């Protein structure tokens, strides 16, 4: 059954990708891209990557679709020019590179082969020892937050930097009380009722994903994205200006920075208590307890930063759209 689902889903991925090349209506392309990410997430579930699927679910179908749509609302809907000349040169380059890569795959270990080199070295150590060393069931969470904690600190910093970059490029506007994005979907009563019911559910679910991440699929990254998606839904249905009254950009800026700081402080705390940077063993009275506390705090930091950055990016885009509406009016 794994193979059947695998083959069909890969075929669907290929169809969507080829269709994206052919199409010139950018809205349709964004729509297809969200289908593409739905397919790839079911593919991840099929191949046991539950944490990755959870992330892709929240990111691909939610946030990145919304951001691309925001960009389209500020630019234009169609790709206006055909490719410059007959695309022979690009086709040639692509064919040659592809042929070389396919030649390279011939030496690769076959799909799902338990003897493949990748399964022989680092991973068995994690699988065997993380239960006793870290003491939480989700191996992915224990590698993410503890074994490779330094790496994750870097990733969180990258997300934070990207948030800052969008903030500098698009900026928020000074007198934001006067701005509103005009006709919101507020007039649609069915949507309003359902939206009002869904937003708290999503926030609750984000908390569940955050704090259940040690036991099942989930963790800071996923929870942050789901929480941001809840506010984005609120903002789409009730209007951007109302959403900003609930969570102001100033608070968002502070949250963005404080998550990364919390993460780094946990590392420094380990140093002060006599361990290495990001060594959680010394945080508690016994090593597994310290690991538990450390992972909890670190995931919390990641969750806060990711949620704030995603929401701040969305607000920046929405503010630009609103300003363009004002100018057009």
């Amino acid at each position, binding site marked *: 059954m794994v193979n*059947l689902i695998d083959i069909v889903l890969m075929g669907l991925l290929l169809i969507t990708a080829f269709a994206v090349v052919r199409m010139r209506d950018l809205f349709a392309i964004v729509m*297809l891209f969200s289908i593409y990410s739905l*397919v790839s997430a*079911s593919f991840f579930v099929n191949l046991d990557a539950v944490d990755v*699927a959870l992330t892709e679910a929240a990111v691909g179908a939610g946030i990145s679709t919304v951001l691309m749509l925001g960009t389209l609302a500020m630019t234009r809907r169609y790709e206006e020019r055909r490719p410059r000349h007959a695309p022979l040169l690009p086709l040639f380059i692509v064919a040659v590179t592809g042929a070389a890569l396919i030649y390279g795959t011939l030496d690769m270990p076959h799909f799902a082969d338990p003897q493949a080199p990748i399964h022989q070295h680092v991973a068995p150590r994690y699988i065997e020892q993380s239960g006793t060393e870290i003491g939480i069931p989700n191996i992915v969470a224990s590698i993410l937050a503890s074994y490779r904690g330094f790496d994750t600190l870097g990733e969180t910093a990258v997300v934070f930097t990207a948030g800052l970059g969008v903030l500098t490029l698009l900026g928020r506007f000074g007198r934001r009380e006067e701005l509103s994005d005009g006709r919101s979907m507020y007039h649609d009563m069915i949507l309003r009722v359902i939206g009002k019911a*869904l937003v708290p559910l999503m926030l609750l679910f984000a908390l569940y994903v955050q704090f259940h991440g040690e036991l099942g*699929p989930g963790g800071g990254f996923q929870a942050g994205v789901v929480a941001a998606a809840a506010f984005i*839904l609120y903002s789409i249905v009730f209007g951007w200006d109302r959403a900003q009254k609930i969570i102001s950009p100033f608070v968002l800026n502070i949250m963005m920075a404080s998550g990364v700081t919390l993460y780094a402080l946990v590392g420094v705390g380990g140093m002060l208590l006599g361990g290495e940077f990001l060594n959680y063993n010394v945080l508690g009275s016994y090593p597994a307890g310290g690991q538990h506390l450390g992972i909890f705090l670190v995931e919390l930091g990641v969750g806060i930063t990711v949620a704030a950055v995603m929401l701040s990016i969305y607000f920046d885009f929405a503010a630009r759209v609103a300003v363009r509406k004002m100018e057009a009016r």
Partner: protein
Amino acid sequence: MYIAATAAILIVMTLAVIRAVIGPTLYDRILAGNMFGTKTVLLIAIMSAVAGRADMVDIALVYALINFIGTIAVLRYFEYSTEEQEKAES
């Protein structure tokens, strides 16, 4: 039993993708995308039932929540840009 249901859902997904590719209007594509999202939720639910793990259902739950946002956002921003185009034309 599960295999038959999975195969049925995969067929539905394929038909929905084809509809999303051939269009013709944007609304058809959104409709196909919406249907595809619902079927993804069902597929993941079936996969987790086969594996017998309750924690995999969480992913289906996220989908059920997020898919709605996708559809609403497309409609919202599409209305925006058609408004703008009408203004530019008049």
